[in-house]
C-alpha cells in the first residue's frame, strides 16, 4: 500500500475517532450483564492509569478530551502495529535472502 493510501486510511481513522463524543454512553453488553447479575463490583481498577475511559486527562472540555484521546490512541496503535509488522517482514526478508545464497 502506497504512502498516499496509508495517509488516507490514517486520516479516516482520525475522523472516525473524532465522532467518539457522539457515541452511546450506555454500558456495553458485558457491563450490562455484570450489572444485571450483580458481579460488576468484582471489577477492580487498574494498577496504573494513563488515559482512563478515553478521556485525555487535564483537558476541561470533555468532547475535546475524548477526541484527543482517540487521536493519541490511533497514532499509538498505528505505530505499534506498523513497527511490529515491519519487524516481522524484515525477518522474513533476511531469511529469504539467506536462503537464496
Amino acid at each position, binding site marked *: *500500500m502506497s*504512502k498516499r*493510501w*496509508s495517509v488516507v*486510511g*490514517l486520516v*479516516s*481513522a*482520525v475522523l*472516525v*475517532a473524532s*465522532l*467518539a463524543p*457522539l*457515541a*452511546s*454512553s*450506555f*454500558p*456495553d*453488553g*458485558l457491563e*450490562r*450483564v*455484570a450489572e*444485571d*447479575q450483580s*458481579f460488576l463490583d*468484582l*471489577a*477492580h*481498577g*487498574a*494498577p496504573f*492509569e*494513563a*488515559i*482512563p*475511559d*478515553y478521556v485525555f486527562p487535564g483537558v476541561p472540555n470533555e468532547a475535546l478530551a*475524548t477526541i484527543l*484521546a*482517540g487521536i493519541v*490512541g*490511533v*497514532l*499509538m*496503535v*498505528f*505505530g*505499534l*502495529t*506498523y513497527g*511490529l*509488522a*515491519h519487524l*516481522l*517482514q524484515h525477518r*522474513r526478508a533476511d*531469511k529469504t535472502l539467506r536462503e537464496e545464497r
Partner: protein
Amino acid sequence: MHIPDGFLNVATTAASWAGAVGGVGYGVHRVKRELSERLVPLMGVTAAFIFAAQMLNFTVAGGTSGHLLGGALAMLLLGPWAGSIVITAVLVVQALVFQDGGVLALGANILNMAVVGVWASYGVYRLLQRLLGARAWGRTTATFVAAWCSVVLSSLVAASELALSGVSPWALVVPAMVGVHMLIGIGEGLITVAVASFVRGVRPDLLSLRAETGA
C-alpha cells in the same frame, strides 16, 4: 466485551493466556514466513481504524450499547493470521493505555476477540463463500454473517470464562451474554459490510483473495 481485572479466577486467567499466546504466537510465526512488504502499512492502518471504530458505541436495546470488534474486518483485509495480530495490538494499547479491559484479563480478551473472533469469521466466511459462490450478494451475505458469528462466538467464550470463574452460573451468564451480543453482532455485520464495500469500491485489490487463500 473487554473483561476487566477481578472477574476471572487464576485458573481461567492462566488457561486463557495460554490460548492467547498459543494462537497469536503461531500467527506471528506464520506471518514471519509469509508477510509481504505491501501488507505492513495496511496492518498499521487497519489496526488504527479498528481502534477508532471501537470508540463508537451504538445503542442496541434499552440502556445497553455495543461497538465494532473488527475481527471480521481485519480478517477480510489481512487474512486470519495477520488479522489476529492486528486485533491483539488494539487490545494491548486499550488495556495498557486506556484501562479498557484488565491487564491480567488481557489474555482472555485476546483469546476471545483476536483468536476466536477472527477465526470464527474466517471459518464462516470460507464456508459461505463456497456455498454462495462469488456473486456480489453472496459475498455481502458471507461478510455480514461472518461478522455476526465472530461477535456471538466471542461472547460465548467470554461467558464460559465468567462461568468457569464462578462469577455467575452457566445457565444465567451464557444466555445473557450471547443474547445481547446477538444484537450487537447486527451492528458488527452492518459496519463490516459497509467498510468492506467501501474498500472494495476504492481499492478492490486490498480485499482480493486474501481471505480465500488463508495467507
